[in-house]
């Protein structure tokens, strides 16, 4: 099934929150997932893998957020992120860094290089699910011809997993909440 990117964003935010991330990080996770989907990557599946592990060591959301927050330092030299799980999830944050700096940012490991100016993305090789060391650097490169997907067609399994996590953020309905929560008040059928 195809989803709008706004649906992806809304689902990703709730799922990340349901998985135990803070609201601020969940907001970031949702934008990041959307960005990946717009690049034609199944961001929903990437996020699902990330959230299976929770906010632990090597979590690309925590590392990604820090990468974006400390983007200014990248101009002084490459940054080693160390071990990273699902390094694809670092890409949207590298893109945020690139847009802040107005420069091209590259992620590299033994088997792959991914380059972005914040808008376009070029990946050569294959990013593994788990890398021992991920290096981030500012490079000079000419990226052009960015084409963006306007829909996401995520794996059904990953979407279901995110839905389950999102569900954890919903308050179970009680008689009281039905009565008060939306404030019935005066008649609605006249």
């Amino acid at each position: 099934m195809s989803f709008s990117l706004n649906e992806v964003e809304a689902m990703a935010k709730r799922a990340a929150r349901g998985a135990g991330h803070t609201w601020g990080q969940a907001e970031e996770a949702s934008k990041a997932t959307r960005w990946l989907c717009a690049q034609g990557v199944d961001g929903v599946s990437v996020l699902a893998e990330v959230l299976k592990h929770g906010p632990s060591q090597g979590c690309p959301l925590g590392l990604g957020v820090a990468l974006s927050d400390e983007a200014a330092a990248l101009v002084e030299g490459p940054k080693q992120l160390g071990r990273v799980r699902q390094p694809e999830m670092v890409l949207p944050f590298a893109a945020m860094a690139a847009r802040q700096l107005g420069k091209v940012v590259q992620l590299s490991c033994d088997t792959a290089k991914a380059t972005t100016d914040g808008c376009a993305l070029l990946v050569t090789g294959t990013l593994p699910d788990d890398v021992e060391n991920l290096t981030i650097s500012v490079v000079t490169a000419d990226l052009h011809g960015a084409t963006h997907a306007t829909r996401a067609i995520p794996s059904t399994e990953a979407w279901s997993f995110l839905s389950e996590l999102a569900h954890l953020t919903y308050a179970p309905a009680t008689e009281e909440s039905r009565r008060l929560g939306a404030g019935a008040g005066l008649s609605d059928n006249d």
Partner: protein
Amino acid sequence: MANRRPAETVMHLSRLGSLHQCRLSFMRQLTRRMAREHWTFSRGVFDINDAGVGHAVYTAQGPDHAYSLVAFSHDLPPEMRSDRVIATAWDATFTLFDGVPTEDDIARLEKNIPLQEAGRVTQSELSVSRANRSVRLWDHFVERLSQGHQPDIEKVEAVGYLMRTTAVYGSGKLGAADREIIANRPEMHAPFQAEMLSVFLTRWFVRDLVNHMAKARGGEKAVPLTSDIAGRLGIGNSTGLGMAPYIINHPVLFNNWMAAREEAIARVRSVAKADDDKIAEFKSVLARSLKSIERWTSEHPIQIDKLAALSQDMDHLQSHLSNTDLSDPTPWGSLMVWAAGALSEEGQELLASLILEPYGELVDDLGATMADETPDAFIIDGTMPVGNVRALIEDTFGWALSLDWSEEQNCAGAWYVSEEKLEPRLGNRFEEPIADFEQPLAPARDAAAAHHDLSQWASEAEVSTFLAKHPEHRHTIRRAQISNRVPYSEIRSNTIAADMLPIDMLRAKLSFFGATHFDPRSDRWVRICMYSGAPYPSELTSANADMWVYPEVTA
């Protein structure tokens, strides 16, 4: 940039809950544009049986794009009719289709649109909505028209619409096209234009349907609705809590709406001298506005009090104007200064909207600034010193820092999403088990908490180091930095106070749509009227495209 009113004056919930439509409202931007660009309108299909069941297609053709309202009409048992989001069936369901639908499209939509949230749409659809009949008015209309008579005008005035929408979903909801797909089209650039167009066309459909049903009942005896009464009818709308968090969740966008209106007010306030024709225009629109206020009724005690105050305000305003020479220097500025000391917030905000009316050439360009085109305002600047972040929070939420946030009156409210309908709800954290599910919709409380922790850090430390230690404050730091870019991003009231009124948040948003006659049905949902007095699509001209919101006054 003229001198705008400061956010600490404008952004209180009580004032936001007193806002009125103005020239920049999204409905009026749309009707002005469609008239200016000579849009054409056609009814391609009207395939509805005598029981009122079937579908119809109405197409609006602009310079570069066509948009079609596809309407499905149903025979709804009365016991299933509810405006609440928990409803599962409606009198009519709609989608705004991007282009002109084929028969295959209609067949696909027929399987999904009547289901609303339980259906799926595609990138070809721009909105999904539904409407219920006003039971009070619908039967009366059909009966009278079927017998060859026009409906009772007093009944028309008491209700104002034959159908009210109970949700209009856009921006990618239920699988529809994301806003980004249409936002670069000039006619869709201002906010909510697809939704406003869908309601504009829905009003046409409703007139056709009531005429059709009267004809089905009365045959040769039946007469169509006169254009005078049809013109008075708007489309009602019931809006509940689901919409309230919107203005908190979109701080830049909401700023842009407020900033556009405040800039417009400031520009007119600084007009050095008012020409006679501008003064005459203002007085005329004031008289027409008084007529609109006369027709505005509510059963809700809060709104009854506000309307009484507004009525007094209008008396004060008229007597003040009879002693005021508007050809004196900066007359609108002086009038607004007087109003700030003499009128209720309802009256002040109505006046602020009215002084814009004669000055379209001065303010209408601001309509184009109301979209949010800065998605990267989301990105946190990690290099900002902690001291600066603290100062930003103090600027916006200084009043919140000394509140005791454990006091029940200050924190009883908790916003949550219900498992049942996946819609925002507001509960009491001391009475219901909802605190663990709380949504981040209390920016003032969260700012106070972040400020407390920021105070333990050296002023010159970079906020990125603070965030590495305190990820729980990340959403608050983001908002603080947004408030540094744009002045009207934050509500300067406590959104979880025990006595907070969600209807104030609803009205703030709906006033920008261009809604009138706000009628709260509780502290959490409100009915409004849209397009009352507007020309129908086939009658739209530059002469009637704008001021329809104010009823004509006959001498």
